[in-house]
């Protein structure tokens, strides 16, 4: 859509994602894809398992992603991407970046075996999880990424279990590059994708991705919520490169978590004590970030 103009912008202007895609209004996953592609450039092949982006990308014969893209089975994003990379290398192409682009379902749950295997083998792929914290494509059911207390269709009284610590799981695989990102911090996200492209071996980027229908929020609040997640300290922006952690944003005066939680319909019935407990955990965590 945007033609390159002399106007200075803080992120590249070229769009590899077209307008006219099928995402909901205010979709965080779409903003994430847009920034990811600006950081990656067009020497990229994407693998997309069953997830919102399976539908957002469009139906045959149209696509909203101007890159070679392979749809894969739900559990198999990391394995399919592994194969794509091997196939390209076997034909003499070592340069093209292979990206697996999956939701939290295909990453935390059904896709975790293939993910763990690929990370364990240090496959030369970039795996991206856009985490909207539930199985959104099938109508909002709890995933391993759903935070405690969140309403979903399968946890109508609020999820009883805490969110799986996916970051720790990935870091336990000794991978060369790990990062978190969220759409409110577009420059940070673009930089991380451009960086990840240059690293050899298994790279993982975990993106917190607001979802208006699933979070029961107003579409216009998606950027605000993405920002609040960081400003309350609930979602850390950091990188780990060859085992060395670098905090990208040290949030000094954290906003209260209740500001983030109360803005979302999925936490509507969360009792004050539970919010206080979450606040205490966040406070304790930031006392000594590891």
């Amino acid at each position, binding site marked *: 859509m945007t033609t390159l103009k002399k106007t200075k912008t803080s992120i590249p202007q070229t769009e590899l994602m077209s307008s006219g895609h099928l995402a909901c209004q205010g979709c965080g996953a779409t903003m994430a894809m847009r920034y990811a592609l600006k950081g990656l450039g*067009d*020497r*990229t*092949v994407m*693998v997309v398992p069953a997830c919102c982006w*399976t*539908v957002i*990308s*469009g*139906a*045959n*014969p149209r*696509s909203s*992603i*101007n*890159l*070679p*893209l*392979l*749809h*894969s*089975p739900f*559990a*198999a994003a*990391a*394995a*399919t*991407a*592994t*194969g*794509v*990379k*091997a*196939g*390209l*290398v*076997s*034909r003499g*192409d070592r340069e*093209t970046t292979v990206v697996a682009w999956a939701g939290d379902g295909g990453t935390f749950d059904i896709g975790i*075996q*293939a993910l*763990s*295997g690929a990370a*364990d*083998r240090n496959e030369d792929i970039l795996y991206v999880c856009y985490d909207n914290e539930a199985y959104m494509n099938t109508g909002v059911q709890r995933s391993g990424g759903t935070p405690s207390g969140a309403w979903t269709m399968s946890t109508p009284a609020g999820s009883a279990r805490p969110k799986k610590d996916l970051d720790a799981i990935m870091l336990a695989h000794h991978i060369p590059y790990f990062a978190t990102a969220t759409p409110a911090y577009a420059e940070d996200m673009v930089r991380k994708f451009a960086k990840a492209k240059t690293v050899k071996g298994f790279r993982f980027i975990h993106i917190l991705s607001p979802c208006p229908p699933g979070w029961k929020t107003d579409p216009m609040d998606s950027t605000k919520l993405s920002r609040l997640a960081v400003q309350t300290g609930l979602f850390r922006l950091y990188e780990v490169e060859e085992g060395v952690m670098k905090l990208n944003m040290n949030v000094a005066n954290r906003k209260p978590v209740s500001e983030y939680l109360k803005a979302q319909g999925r936490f509507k019935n969360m009792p004050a004590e539970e919010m206080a407990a979450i606040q205490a955990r966040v406070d304790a965590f930031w006392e000594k970030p590891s």
Partner: protein
Amino acid sequence: MKKVLSGNHAAALGAQLARTQVSVGYPITPATQVFEALAEMKSKGEFPGEFIAAESEHSVMAALLGASTAGARTFTATSSHGLAYMHEVLHWVAGARLPIVMIDVNRALAAPWNLWTDQTDSLSQRDTGWMQTYCSTNQEVLDTVLMSFKIAERVMLPSMVVLDGFTLSHSYEPVDVPSQADVDAFLPPFRPELKLDPEQPITFGSLTQPKDYLRLRRRMAADMAEAEDAIEEVGREFGEMFGRSYGQLDPYRCEDAETILVTSGAVGSTARAAVDALRAKGLKAGNLRLRAFRPFPAKALRAFVKPGMKLAVVDRNYSPGMGGIWAQEIKAALYPRPGVSVHGYVTGLGGGDITVELLQEVWERVDDSPVAEVPAATWVEDAR
């Protein structure tokens, strides 16, 4: 060059000679040695392709989905539960029209555990869109791997090369291994028109409307029909180049036979011994070994049968609620065929021995029975 090889090793050599570009594997008894042979070749610099040891068979086939779509020639080997575990991806790669070649070493499916040869694992994948060829010698395994790449890449359908667990996979037989130069002359490089390539920003596998899905499947049907011819043509071409030709059917002493033992896999060679013994007694016995299972060689079979023929079909497999799978498919292919009867025998499940003597007894029983067919399968075992 003649070598003494196990079936598994012959399969691995076939993949190497075919210049496989990406092989992804996972161990499972009794197919493990295919994977290990490729790993060893890789470590010695004798396998120039990419070799990946994945963490499950589902991931193996998903990785081959990726590699094949990226334009690479691909290969793997599995068995039984490994094959079953990749089931959804088998459907996927066939629908994606990818010419992946895979060895399936027949082994019974649990429950309960059983490691020995049984065809139910491969036959029960008959609806996935994979071509299937059943081998009866280790020579045939190597040859069929080479032919399968050629046929698969012509019709753009994946191909399963099936061999009996332990009986072929682990037994050593003399195998004439062709030279790399001869294989290169037979099998040109894989050059797909559509592939993942940054120069071609296209999307594979998107959501597709019913009207298109129907027509894509119909195209698959047309290509499966072409595969029936391709199996014969490539089999003849192979014969011209290497001195051993193959087809969909492998008849033995059937010219004047009315009762015919119909077999597949390693039992194929046991059946020839049974036919020779029966003929020695003056009985007009013949053996029809079916090599091709998918596409089912219906045309060839219909051309083969004559009125008055009795087919004694030996099924080392079982489809619960129906019977032996080869017998079922043969009946469907021959319907309606007045004067030809199909007698199904289920035996050898879980690796039971199917002996020359047992096959003779089956033949004699069918030869003595009236032409009208026996609808249900007869269950037998080697009494020793």
